[in-house]
């Protein structure tokens, strides 16, 4: 991931985050969430900074926590985060065709989660708790119920047009 590192992460922002949590080790997850809220992912410098400046942590232990939880991403995320639910209800009601339609529409490369242009990130998530609306897709916190391949293609088309 070092080639994707950019110097966006600045000392002052990190210092403010750590200060707001009193430099306490027990707030590590909250710190990481805040970092991710700002940068959309956890840059290596940010994890190193926390590891070096919080007592009882090291860059490696921060990395260990970051890789333990699915909520943290170590790669930059796209402008639109698409979450496709593949819980039991969504699965039986056809989440996989929806997923394939999205992959095709945003031209996602095999093995990648984010598109080359940095516009979309695709994630498969377990149950979102909206089984009555299955299959569900969430794009940047907005819920799209009862999706079909056609419907999601239209939605993505609209987003892409807005971006042009």
């Amino acid at each position: 991931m070092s080639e994707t590192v950019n110097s966006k992460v600045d000392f002052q922002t990190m210092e403010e985050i750590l200060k707001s949590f009193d430099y306490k080790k027990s707030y590590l997850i909250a710190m990481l969430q805040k970092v991710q809220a700002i940068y959309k992912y956890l840059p290596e410098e940010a994890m190193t900074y926390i590891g070096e400046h919080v007592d009882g942590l090291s860059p490696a232990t921060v990395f260990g926590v970051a890789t333990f939880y699915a909520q943290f991403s170590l790669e930059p995320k796209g402008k639109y985060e698409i979450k496709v639910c593949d819980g039991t209800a969504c699965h039986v009601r056809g989440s996989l065709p929806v997923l394939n339609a999205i992959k095709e529409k945003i031209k996602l490369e095999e093995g990648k989660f984010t598109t080359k242009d940095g516009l979309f990130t695709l994630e498969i998530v377990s149950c979102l708790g909206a089984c009555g609306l299955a299959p569900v897709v969430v794009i940047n916190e907005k819920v799209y119920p009862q999706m079909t391949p056609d419907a999601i293609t239209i939605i993505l088309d609209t987003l892409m047009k807005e971006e042009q």
Partner: protein
Amino acid sequence: MGKMIINGKECEFTNERNILEVIRKNGFNVPTFCYRPDLTKDFGACRMCVVEIDGRMIQASCTTPPAEGMVVKTNTEKVRSIRKTILKLLLANHDRECTTCDKSGTCELQKYSEEYGITDADVKKFVQRKENLPVDNSAYTLVRDPNKCILCGACVRACEEHQGLSVLAFTNRGSKTVVQPMVDKDLAHSECIGCGQCAAVCPTGALTVKSYTEQVWDELMNPEKKVVVQFAPAVRVAIGEMFGIEPGENMTEKLNAALRALGFDLVFDTNFSADLTIMEEATEFLGRLNNGGKLPLFTSCCPGWVKFLELKHPDMLDHLSTCRSPQAMMGSIIREYIPQYYPEFKPENLVSVSIMPCTGKKAEARRDEFKRADGSYEIDYVLTTQEIARMIKSAGIDIKNIKPEKADSPFGKYTGAATIFGVSGGVAEAAARTAYEVVTGQELKDVVINDMRGTNRVKTVELDLNGTHLKVKIVNTIKEAEKCMREIKEGKADYQLLEVMACPGGCINGGGQPMSCNDSEIKEKRARGLYKDDETGELRKSHKNPDVQELYNKHLEAPNSHKAHELLHTTYSNKRKDCYISVGE
């Protein structure tokens, strides 16, 4: 206080933290992987220590505190079957190339698999993990092979609890869990200081000392080459263990003989350059004291400690003594003067090898500061105690019964002050002996400073050199050293000399010593061995070493002279860029 029954025998317990300790104290044993007496005891990762407790069924003995009237059975059908299942599952995901593994013979997984009669068919019932993870061979010091890791967490705890560095951590989750440094960094680019304490507690071959024995064999077998060797203080009291000799027995003269039998052309003692270190460091210290130099002065013998400062506290480097470590001093002295004393040793055919209790010394020898004009290094190869013992075994040398021999001259003699360099507090004690006589001009009668001895991680000693009052702080482990750095930065340090050794107890417990799994009894025996060597020797003060005096008279003039600086001192630099992509710098 209470009584419990173990395998039908009534056993007393007092303040033991868990029933595993009670079991072992009473002559029984259960297998363990993750249990290490010096580290967090109730980690409970491997579950090999399960026992059957009446009324409680099966429990891990390392996490269960003893209780009155407890009835424990350590070897029932049930627990044996659980242990066998654990072994089978571990082996199913394990690189089982035992014959070519560095840990073969000392591996605990190998040992228990044999004891519990695990067969190939047992293991093949399970599907083996397909992907092979890359082996990290990047560092000069250690090799990390995640395919042999059983996730017992001993290394993670050693790095955190001894050094406070946590270079290694559990990453990812579930079946994908790996113990590794930050992101995809290799050890060479992590903040690893190379102390090797992780390898010292690793039950398998996942963390091993990088071996240079083949290269050294090649040099020894090459008739064109002249190979010179030196060995460190702590080696002599530990190497015997690999040949069934009690820890602490002084093997100096037998080792001299064994090294000659191996084919080394000249055998010197790093203790000689430890004496030299005292001459230089004591002079530097008194110079700083009298001329208002930077204090407290830090000792610079330990390569792990030096690297730690370069990585974590580059702003404190001006406290660090500019003296090279004894290994490096000997390295430069050999290069400079051996061709003068022994004309058949020419600069182009001289090979310099050192034997150390330490894994970090391998990296120290590869520092840019010790690089020669032709790109080679002053010391060509650094072997650990483990490696040289293996070479002696493979050459069929009976070190137990070999006729003792003296080291070669002119760099073979040593004093008791030098030999105690191998134990935490020893450098300070040796320096104090010389400093006293230099400052007061009087003879020091009682050379032993008891307050500087003992296994404590922190010792503070006040000295009175006839009116000159000094305070010396002695710490071992980097965790304690870090606390000192804070003290100094906060202006709370009232001492003038700080001795740091990275390994718990000092070099006697180095990462390259024979496997002792941090057993404190072995550690103490080795320390006693060095103190005994000091007591029984004729000379106990570094400045009384006749070889050292001759070196100054003939070549170096005086401690801290221009020539001495050139050969015996070095420089340090901020090494953060090698390791961190960090913000704010």
